[in-house]
């Protein structure tokens, strides 16, 4: 894909035009627009970044700085299901590491990797802000609190059985 082929749809562009109005300056719309790109294209490629810079009238470097600073912006494709296990204090004290190890075992990959079928990526993340429900696993940004090896296995099995269809 080149910068010419990574393009927002007309609807998106209209949405962005509206969004920009909500802020004192167009650069403020950068993070929301990056989310849109991630939603539309799966990840934020360099071409997408160039295109976004153009759409918002920014320099490519301004876009690059933001994309690389924030962990939730992905420059590489991830698995269809992103399993993010919090291992910070609250979750650690409630067995998050054991849970993460178990999940890696079930998936047959190491932390940070993607299953060969491209279905799952497992990652260790920082405190999700839900320590009351520790341990917490986010699945594509949906919180699964008080997760257990059994509940995660069930989820993985379910996804696999459905062939990855939500």
């Amino acid at each position, binding site marked *: 894909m080149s910068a010419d082929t990574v393009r927002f749809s007309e609807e998106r562009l209209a949405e962005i035009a509206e969004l920009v109005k909500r802020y004192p300056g*167009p650069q403020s719309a950068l*993070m929301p627009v990056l989310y849109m790109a991630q939603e539309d294209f799966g990840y934020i490629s360099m071409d997408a970044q160039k295109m976004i810079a153009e759409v918002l009238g920014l320099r490519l470097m301004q876009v690059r*700085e933001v994309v690389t600073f924030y962990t939730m912006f992905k420059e590489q494709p991830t698995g269809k299901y992103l399993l993010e296990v919090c291992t910070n*204090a609250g979750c650690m*004290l409630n067995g998050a590491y054991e849970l993460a190890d178990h999940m890696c075992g079930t998936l047959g990959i190491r932390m940070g990797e993607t299953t060969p079928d491209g279905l799952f990526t497992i990652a260790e993340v920082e405190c*999700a*802000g839900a320590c*009351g429900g520790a341990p917490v696993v986010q699945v594509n940004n*949906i919180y699964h609190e008080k997760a257990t090896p059994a509940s995660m296995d069930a989820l993985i099995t379910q996804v696999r059985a459905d062939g990855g269809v939500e």
Partner: protein
Amino acid sequence: MTISSDPKQVTQICFDRINIPNQNKLSVARENGAYEFLPTVLNDFDSAKIINEVKTSGIRGRGGAGFPTGLKWSFVPRNTGKPTYLLCNADEGEPGTFKDRDIMRFDPHLLIEGMIMAGFALDVRDAYIYIRGEFLHEANVLNEAIAEAYAANLLGENILGSGYSMNLTVHRGAGAYVCGEETALIESLEGKPGRPRFKPPFPAVEGFYRCPTVVNNVETLATVPAILKFGGEWHASIGIPNNTGCKIFSVSGHVNKPGNYEVPMGTSLKTLIEDYCGGLQHGSVPKVIIPGGSSTPWLTAEHYDTPLTYDDLMKAGSFLGSGAIIVMDETADLVALTRRLAHFYAHESCGQCTPCREGTGWLERVMKRVEGGKGCAGDVTVLKDASEHMAGRTICALAEGAAAPVLSLLKHFPEDVQTRLAESSK
């Protein structure tokens, strides 16, 4: 609101309506008193009166620093010719904290109402809620609530015919703890990496787009409707002087019933843990209590009875912080926990200040070695030196938070470290 006008009866403020089903829907929220007092504020109060009530209430910021909110508002210069912005800090990234999330997902209108009132007091046209990226669900709930509020003319032009207009926008962060620091939050909201700005100038004078800006925590803003409805004096009579009102504590770790509990200030740690959280998972006395989020120094069993106030916790050698209490019983591996927290700070350092950028990584690597049984005797001095010279020498307080667990470990549990070091010499 069902809160009693008698301060002695009050045990909850922000969580007053938290358990009502569908409270996030405007109709339900209104049935339960949301926006009831708003017209009075918009029509009969003026800026000075509101700020004065908030000052009288004695409320201190619930986001971590505990700065008196009324005072902060009074610092905002008027008639600068520039707009004033109100930013709600919903970044909730401090490990252990998860209270703002409940307000936002269960009672978003309480926050919105608080923001309208604060916005009115500060003559704000555009307000923003900066919410951490992971809280996608909460952001959606807020957006729906805001849409309903706009439709009901509670937001937008000429709110309820009062002549006051305010826009409110939810803005998602994207995975950076440091964006909870108010100046980093401002940078982030400007579409840049969240690197804190040095002060002065303070945001109140030069913040968002270099205009006067107030940044307040969700819980702080959610308290405003009650303060205005029942009066500053009312709020000041809850809790204890200089530590007024109620506070939500997010309790996690080795307790039987972790969760958020709002209690009047001054309730003791022990009461909270035993009466509300069902006590510890193992044993009867905690080994470590981190009282205000992972960035605050640790307390040990000797401080189990400390009343939960800004002042008492400071006296005990720590801080109330964001009210995130992480409790550990005797089963906790403190070296491992410290290593995990060191990893957190190394991962989250924005990278700009030398001691924080280099120090956090250094601490993590040494802690990892120590945890893995590969430490050496000199490591203790290195850990101490490296953390002591980070704290207080950087633009923001992240480095101080990074130093706290290491210094606490070395101070309270040197033997835990020594045991690991001994393992390595074997």
